[in-house]
C-alpha cells in the first residue's frame, strides 16, 4: 500500500517535472541551447499568476490565458534580443548568455517584487483526492493531466502542421532546412517562444502548489536538466517519460534512503547516463554533440 502511494506520488511530481522539461527539451532539440533561463521563466510565470490573483482575484487556472502568451512573448524577446547573437558565436557563448540572463531576471525580480514569499491559497490547494486509502494532491493531479494534454497537443502540432514540421526539420538538420526554404531565424524564435510558453503553463499551474519568490526557479533547474538528458535531448516523449522516471526514483529513494540523499540518487543516475548513453532513452545521436 505504501509502495503504491509512493509510486503514485512519484508519478504526480514526475508529471510536474515533465511539464517543466518539455520546453527545455524542445529548445535544446531545435537550437542546441542549454537553457539556464528556463527555471527563471517558471518564476516569472508564477509571479504573473500570483499578481493576477492578488490584484484582480483571477484564479491561476484562468490566468493561464494571459500567462501563456505573455511568457511566449518574453521568450521571443530574449531570443531575438540576445540569444540569436550568442548562438552564432558558440555553444559556450549561448550557455553563458543564458546564465547571465538568469542572474539578471532573478535580481530584477528581487528588486521589483522584493524577497517576500508569495502564495496563492485557494480552496483547491490543500485538497486531495482519496481512493482506496491512496491520497493524491488535487492541484498536482490537475498539473499532471494538463501535462498529458499539452504533450499530446504538442505532438500533434509538430507532426501535422507546417510550422511544426518546419521546427522538426530545423532541429534535425539546420542547413538542409534552410535549403528547403525554412526561415530558420523565424523558426528558432518561434521554438524558443513555444518552449518558454510551455514552462509558462507549468508556472501558472504550480503557483498554487509552491510558494513564489525570486529564486524559486533554481529549485527545478537541475532536475529538469536530468530529465531532459535521461529522456533524450530533443525528445518530447523522452521528457515525459524521463520526468515520470525521475519523479518515481526521487520519491522512492527519499522514502527508503532519506530525503537529504534523494538528489544524490538522481544526480548519479544523470552522470551515469551521460557516460554510458548521452543520447538518453529516446534522443537522437547528434553529430558533433553526443556522437
Amino acid at each position: 500500500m505504501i509502495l503504491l502511494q509512493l509510486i503514485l506520488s512519484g508519478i504526480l511530481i514526475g508529471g510536474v517535472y515533465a511539464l517543466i522539461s518539455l520546453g527545455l527539451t524542445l529548445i535544446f532539440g531545435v537550437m542546441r541551447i542549454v537553457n539556464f533561463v528556463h527555471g527563471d521563466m517558471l518564476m516569472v510565470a508564477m509571479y504573473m499568476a500570483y499578481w493576477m490573483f492578488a490584484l484582480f482575484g483571477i484564479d491561476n487556472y484562468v490566468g493561464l490565458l494571459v500567462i501563456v502568451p505573455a511568457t511566449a512573448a518574453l521568450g521571443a524577446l530574449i531570443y531575438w534580443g540576445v540569444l540569436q547573437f550568442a548562438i552564432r558565436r558558440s555553444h559556450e557563448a549561448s550557455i553563458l548568455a543564458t546564465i547571465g540572463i538568469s542572474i539578471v531576471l532573478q535580481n530584477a525580480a528581487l528588486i521589483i517584487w522584493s524577497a517576500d514569499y508569495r502564495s496563492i491559497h485557494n480552496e483547491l490547494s490543500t485538497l486531495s483526492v482519496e481512493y482506496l486509502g491512496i491520497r493524491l494532491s488535487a492541484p498536482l493531479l490537475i498539473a499532471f493531466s494538463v501535462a498529458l494534454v499539452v504533450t499530446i497537443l504538442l505532438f500533434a502540432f509538430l507532426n501535422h502542421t507546417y510550422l511544426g514540421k518546419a521546427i522538426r526539420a530545423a532541429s534535425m538538420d539546420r542547413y538542409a532546412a534552410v535549403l528547403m526554404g525554412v526561415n530558420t531565424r523565424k523558426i528558432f524564435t518561434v521554438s524558443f517562444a513555444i518552449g518558454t510558453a510551455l514552462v509558462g503553463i507549468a508556472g501558472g499551474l504550480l503557483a498554487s502548489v509552491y510558494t513564489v519568490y525570486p529564486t524559486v526557479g533554481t529549485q527545478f533547474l537541475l532536475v529538469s536538466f536530468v530529465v531532459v538528458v535521461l529522456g533524450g535531448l530533443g525528445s518530447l516523449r523522452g521528457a515525459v517519460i524521463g520526468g515520470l522516471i525521475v519523479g518515481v526514483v526521487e520519491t522512492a529513494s527519499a522514502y527508503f534512503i532519506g530525503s537529504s540523499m534523494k538528489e544524490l540518487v538522481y544526480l548519479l543516475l544523470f552522470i551515469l547516463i551521460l557516460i554510458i548513453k548521452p543520447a538518453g532513452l529516446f534522443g537522437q545521436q547528434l553529430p558533433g554533440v553526443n556522437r
Partner: protein
Amino acid sequence: MLKGRRPMMLSLILSVITLFAGCSPEREADEHRFKIGVAFPVSGNLAKIGQACTNGVEIAAELVNEQGKGFEIELIKVDVPDAVTAVHQVNRLILKEDVKVVIGTYASPISMAASGITERNRVVLWEVAATDPRLTRRGFRYVFRPNPDASMYGPATVRFLSEVVVPKLGLKNEDLKMALIHEDGEYGEAVAASTKEAAKKAGIPIVEEIRYNAKSTNDLSSAILRLKKAQADVINMVQYDTDAQLFWKQAKQLGLNAKVFIGNGAGQSSDNFGHVFGKAANGVLDTSSAISINPEALTPEMRETEKKFVQRYKKKFGKEPDLIARLAFSSSYILFNDVIPKAGGDDPDRIRQAALSLDKPVGSTIVGWGVKFDERGQNTRATMSVMQWQNGKLVVVYPQNFKKREPIMIPMHDSSKN
C-alpha cells in the same frame, strides 16, 4: 613585441583604476555621533529575513535617537549575502568607515566569518539572530549575542511538552513519541540536535528523524509517508518558510495526523504561514522567542516601547513587524538604549564592560528576554517561549507569565476528515 605590451599595460592600469574606484569620501568623526555598522544579507536567498532584520534595527536607532540621550546613532548598512562578501564588507566597515560596532548577521557562516574579522580588529559584533552555538564558544571577547542560540530550543520545547502537553494528554513522558523533520542546513541540524538531546534527558522517545534539503525539495510526500508510518504523537519541525508551507500543504493532503505539531521559529514563525493557511494553521505550535508577550510580564517602559515600535514600523514599512524584525529590534535596542549610554561611547572595551554589567530581569525586551551576558557574550536570559497559531495569529501560550492565551487543540483533531 612593443605593440603587444602596450595594450597589456593599458589593461593593467584600467583594472587597477577600476579596483580603487570604489572610493567614497570618509565621513568626519564626531564626538557624539556613533557610526554603527549594519550587516545583513539583503540579497540572495536570505533577502527577506535580512531585510526584516535591517528594518528592526533601523526603528531601534530611530527611537533611541529621538530620546535625546546626548548622542546620535548613525547606521551604515552593507549587504552580506555570503561569507566572502561578509569578510570584505566588514573589513570595509572597520577599515574605511571606522566603525567600532557591527550589528548583524543572521546566518551562521556569515556570523562566523564576520566575527573572525571583528575580533581580530577589536571591534564588537552584536549578533541579533544567528543561532550557531559556536559563535559564542570561541573565546572571543567582543562578540555579544542577545538572542538564544540553537541549543536553547530543544530544552524549551521539551519543557513545554513535559509541563503542558503530557498532563493534558494524560500520558507520561515515556509514552510521548516524537518525530523530527528538519532541513539539513546549519539551523535545522543545530536545533534538531538540541531537541534530541533534551528529549533524551526527559525520557521522550524519538521514533523518526527526517532530514531534507530545503533548497532543492519540491516534494515532501515521501517524508510525510514515513512520518505517517512512525505514528508519532508529536511532530517537531525545523523548517524555513517555503518548505514549511509545502510540508503543511502536503501533510493536509496526505492526511498526516499527530496530537501535537510544533515548529521552531523560522517557517512556523513567519507571517506568511498564517496568511497562506488561515484557519488551517490553527493549533500549530512554535518554539521561539516570543512575538509579543503578555503586557503584564513586560516592564512598563517596555510596554510603551513595544507600542511605539509597532506603530513606527507599520508607518515606515507598511506592514506589521514579523518575529525576526522584533528580534532584531530587541537586540539592537539593548545596544543602543542600555549599553552605549553606559559605555559612554563606542569603545569596544567599554562596550564589553557595559554589556557584561547589565542585569535586567526577564521582560525587559519586547520579546520577553532579560539581559545577562555570560563571559562568552551569550545572553543567558534569552527566554524562549512557545506560541500557537490561533485565529490566524501567532500568540504566546507558554510560559505561564508570558502567555496571552491558553493553548488550544491539544490534541489536534484528525485531519482525515478535512
